[in-house]
């Protein structure tokens, strides 16, 4: 097969998704739940009517951004597990900006809030980048630790500066900073679908060109493949590391901003990190970092997440089954070597027969 490698690029994720769904079905069957009923209610819950589709697309919006962020870092060879914390800082900054500068004209307020989110996410990841570049500190551990710091810091800031009289959430953002719009709400039967999706799709294109067509992207890839060779070739590796982490965090921060400005429209005291961080990582891994692929794998995970909510409406199945499916899919993506071998054997047999 001349095109086998290209074919595998599609077949491996498809096999992984299928395997994940099968494992999920087996788990459901073991505990006495009907997998067919559950998957049926999952898909109707995610795609059944205009409102459901709107919610699924709204779920997709931040996932694309956090996934792009994870991809940028992996291109340069870093495993940025801190997407959740970076998104939270972005969320915090964008809502704070919107509340503090509410007198600004509409477009300026919106743009400023979005930029504040990107900036905060970028700085948060940049800390890990600087530590990695100058001191060699493992970004896997620092970004995780920064996640927890972001969690406690944001709840402290909400309680002490943004919440009013003993409540644990901020005021709703002013009209001018909203990403939701009557047009999209009307189109999707009052779902929370919002203009954030435009930001996400623009970023897909930007990241694609950044990685494939620019000098910066070339440097990211070079450092990711072999930092010693990149250094020998005259690249400033330290600068590349920091820049890749900052851009990665800025994208995650944007993800948080669209949650704050488009979905929740405020910020509240959180007891756990927003799951767009870890799910974005899963989206990116399934798409093996490809920006266009991220749209599709993001859509799949959004369907699972939104559809998962209606699983527990129809039956007593705990909605966490969806997270089991997602983790299993990524497990199979991780062991893609085995899938490739299996598929090769399968295609050989067909060729001979």
């Amino acid at each position, binding site marked *: 097969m001349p095109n086998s490698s290209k074919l595998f690029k599609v077949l491996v994720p498809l096999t992984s998704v299928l395997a994940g769904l099968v494992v999920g079905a087996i*788990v459901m069957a073991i*505990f006495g739940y009907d997998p067919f009923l559950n998957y049926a209610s999952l898909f109707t819950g995610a795609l059944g009517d205009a409102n459901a589709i709107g919610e699924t697309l709204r779920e997709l919006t931040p996932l694309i951004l956090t996934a792009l962020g994870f991809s940028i870092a992996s291109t340069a060879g870093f*495993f940025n*597990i801190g997407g959740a914390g970076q998104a939270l800082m972005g969320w915090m900054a964008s809502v704070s900006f919107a509340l503090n500068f509410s007198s600004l004209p509409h477009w300026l307020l919106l743009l400023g809030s979005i930029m504040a989110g990107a900036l905060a996410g970028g700085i948060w990841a940049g800390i890990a980048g600087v*530590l990695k570049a100058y*001191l*060699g*500190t*493992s970004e*896997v*551990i*620092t970004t*995780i*630790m*920064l*996640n*927890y*710091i972001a969690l*406690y*810091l944001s*709840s*402290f800031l909400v309680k002490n500066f943004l919440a009013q009289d003993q409540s644990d959430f901020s005021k709703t953002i002013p009209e001018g900073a909203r990403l939701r719009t009557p047009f999209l709400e009307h189109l999707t039967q009052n779902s929370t679908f919002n203009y954030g999706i435009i930001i996400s799709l623009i970023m897909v294109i930007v990241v694609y060109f950044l990685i494939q067509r620019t000098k910066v992207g070339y440097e990211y890839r070079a450092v990711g493949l072999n930092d010693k060779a990149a250094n020998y070739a005259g690249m400033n590796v330290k600068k590349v590391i920091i820049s890749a982490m900052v851009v990665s965090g800025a994208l995650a921060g944007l993800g948080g901003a669209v949650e704050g400005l488009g979905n929740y429209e405020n910020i509240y005291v959180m*007891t*756990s990190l927003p799951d767009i961080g*870890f799910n974005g*990582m*899963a989206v990116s*891994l399934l798409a093996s970092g490809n920006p266009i692929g991220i749209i599709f794998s993001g859509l799949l995970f959004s369907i699972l997440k939104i559809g998962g909510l209606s699983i527990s409406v129809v039956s*007593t199945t*705990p909605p*966490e*089954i969806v*997270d*089991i499916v*997602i*983790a*299993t899919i*990524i*497990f199979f*993506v*991780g*062991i893609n*070597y*085995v899938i490739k071998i299996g598929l090769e054997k399968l295609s050989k047999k067909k060729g001979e027969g």
Partner: protein
Amino acid sequence: MSVITILMTMVSTALIYSAPLIFAALGGTFSERGGIVNVGLEGIMIVGAFSGAVFNLTYGPALGAVTPWIGLLVAGGFGLLFSVLHALATVNFRADHIVSGTVLNMLAPALCVFLTKIFYDGKGQTPVLDQSLSTFTFPILSKIPVVGEIFFTRTSLLAYLGILIGFISWWILIKTKFGLRLRSVGENPQAADTLGINVYLMRYSGVLISGFLGGIGGGIMSQSISLNFSVSTIAGQGFMALAAMIFGKWHPLKVVAAAIFFGISQSLAIIGAYIPVISKIDDVWFQMAPYLITIVVLALFIGKFYAPAADGETYVKSK
């Protein structure tokens, strides 16, 4: 409160929080000395915390005070079972170690909360355990003036057990044939293979030991600290254990010392309340402190750390 009582409270609180980290960090050491990076320690601890809590709730009424101790072994057993996934993926199926570890970290909370909801009427957390690992007063040692009261009265027996296991781990890794083989596989698997050492078997042993010890670490968390199981029972302790492993330079005794250091930082929020000046500081700083301290320590000392040479590398046996 007298100074000695304050000191006793501080030391025992610090040790209670150190115990899970000591076990998990020693587990990580075995895995990485064999060349398998285990960022899935967090997930393993979650499985341990969950299975320990479920065992405790189920058999507590029948078994009484001995329950949590058996619960620890159960936690270790399930941790070990769970770590088989990581061994399979990294040793046999050539998965990236960090991706596979991350899968454990994603799967564990999903699976454990899923099961919690099935076992406990749809609630996201278990009921409170009534058979917990309480504090322990050493029979003779506690009679020593001052020292006995500070270090051996109402303290964490598990932390002392962890220190003992640290010594045993040191002996196993440095002094036994098994330890030498495990280390050789982590440093240079090709050479080890040439000498007839079964690289895959050794790497499996390392990962499974980390699963057992990490599971116990989780079981300690749920049975002596949180006293129930929920998603937030394990909040970064697995990663802190990894940090302790790095800070302790992959050497069991130093790893134990580092784990105690991180245990102290975890206990600051509770200890802080007893110290007059510090108790005025907002809680948030204490909550962030252990994570912040972990970053600072790694950043300042990392330059001097060298991981096992083949740590994180997949070994493919040539035919």
